[in-house]
């Protein structure tokens, strides 16, 4: 059965409900529904199957605003990971390092630039061991910028292909911490002019409308090249990623689907769109 057995008022309401319950948000939902209504009225969509397919297309297109891949051509490629507390930065870095090293044969060096949170360095150190890569750390409470600087410097010295810098969780509403993030980026750029080549923002798939605020403010502080949508193995659909893509043009590049080393996948807009409606 499709969402559109008949094209009546109730159908549009059920569609709205499905998207809102997936955290797509009222504004993006209205935009999508309006577009689909227009397509339906234009007459070239016959019946439930065609409408569902068109809707899935609309959602997938919205979810693909830009380049969805991480460019690994720069040598070395420096990736910085940022995001709100607990969204999955450290774990994602462990998974990404494993994928780059074990599946793509690249040498990876990690930078433990979360010098603040209890046992953050220990946590990333264990991930480095699991992923089979080196890690650069600093003394506890040291300046995150200096650890990031050292990670890039040592990574280059050792001829690493990829350097991934972990940062402390922070709320987009904490001006001093956002300033610190901008500083970490500047320090990395001092060591290597085009770096970081990729800045990823982790967004928890269970996040509601605040996710849009997060993406907005983080991207005003540092250029955000892509989103890692984490914890998609739960029941949340991560619809906020659609709002982020639609309103800010930031693409989801990776998805987290579990807590193990292999639980990272490239983002597939079609799969994502179908899952939103499931």
């Amino acid at each position: 059965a499709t969402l559109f057995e008949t094209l009546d008022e109730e159908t549009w309401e059920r569609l709205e409900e499905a998207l809102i319950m997936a955290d797509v948000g009222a504004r993006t939902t209205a935009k999508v529904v309006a577009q689909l209504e227009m397509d339906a009225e234009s007459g070239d969509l016959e019946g439930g199957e065609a409408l569902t397919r068109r809707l899935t297309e609309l959602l997938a297109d919205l979810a693909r605003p830009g380049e969805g891949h991480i460019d690994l051509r720069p040598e070395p490629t420096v990736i910085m990971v940022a995001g709100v507390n607990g969204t999955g930065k450290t774990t994602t870095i462990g998974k990404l390092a494993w994928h780059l090293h074990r599946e793509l044969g690249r040498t990876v060096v990690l930078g433990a630039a979360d010098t603040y949170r209890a046992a953050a360095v220990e946590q990333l150190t264990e991930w480095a061991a699991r992923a089979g890569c080196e890690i650069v750390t600093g003394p506890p409470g040291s300046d995150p910028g200096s650890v990031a600087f050292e990670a890039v410097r040592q990574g280059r010295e050792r001829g690493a292909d990829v350097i991934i810098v972990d940062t402390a969780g922070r709320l987009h509403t904490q001006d001093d911490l956002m300033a610190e993030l901008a500083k970490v980026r500047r320090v990395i750029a001092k060591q290597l002019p085009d770096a970081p080549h990729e800045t990823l923002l982790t967004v928890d798939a269970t996040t509601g409308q605040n996710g849009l605020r997060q993406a907005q403010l983080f991207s005003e502080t540092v250029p955000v090249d892509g989103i890692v949508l984490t914890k998609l193995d739960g029941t949340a659909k991560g619809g906020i990623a659609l709002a982020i893509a639609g309103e800010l043009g930031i693409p989801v590049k990776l998805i987290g689907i579990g807590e193990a080393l292999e639980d990272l996948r490239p983002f597939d807009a079609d799969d994502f769109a179908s899952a939103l409606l499931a």
Partner: protein
Amino acid sequence: SLSEKLQATLADVRAHGTLTEDDIAKAMREIRLALLEADVNFKVVKSFTATVKERCLGADVVGALNPGQQVVKIVNEELAALMGGASMGLTFSPRPPTVVLMAGLQGSGKTTATAKLARWLKAEHGSSVALAACDVYRPAAVDQLRTVGAQVGADVYEQGTDRDPVDIARWALDQAKMAGKDVLIVDTSGRLHVDEKLMAELVDIRRAVKPTNVLLVVDAMTGQDAVNVAEQFSQAVDFDGVIMSKLDGDARGGAALSVKAVTGKPILFASVGEKLDQFERFHPDRMAQRILG
């Protein structure tokens, strides 16, 4: 804010005399949008606006001099009723140690809340508190608890990561009894409400230490899924109360309303920052205002 929008929407009613069906529909739409924007669950919003609409059809609104103000008053009253009364804090067992079991999704703030609650209990009640490190899965979780436990002066009972969390919990309870602790707080690993194995483990931990308080830690930025999570945790392990974390951000926190409305469980505490002293009793009235925006 919602009250401003409602006042604006119904401002010209005074001009043409009586509140029409259309006026009420407009007002309900404003309420619905505001609550959805605040991440209140879709179904909770539906039943909430139905309740408010019912009251709006009453004479006190229809015939009011300032219907906008009346509608705002009704929304505030109904929201306050849903959010419940002031937090009663923790329930203490007549036979110490009082056991508190922390549960929740990955990254919601459990480990931090464990230390914060310990510090709060020492400060507010003079309790001697110990912590049990039952997260054997997350890398360096035990190190994390050991560190924050030391920061608040609470003993941490740990057995590394090779033992079953249920056995560690049981052992920790014995340690707490022998040491004459007032409270034992058990930290557990983040888990999905749909992970059968881990939910069964949580039930086993609960059975082993018979907590007086099972607390579900919920991230304030949680969206529509909050209801699924709360319902499943409630069915599986039946929690007693909620700790809402990361309330120092600007998430409106509609999940608080959804969880309370759907499970009836009270929100007991609010974590309002990363520091261990940023923890307080939950204030439902403040939350209601925040959700209304």
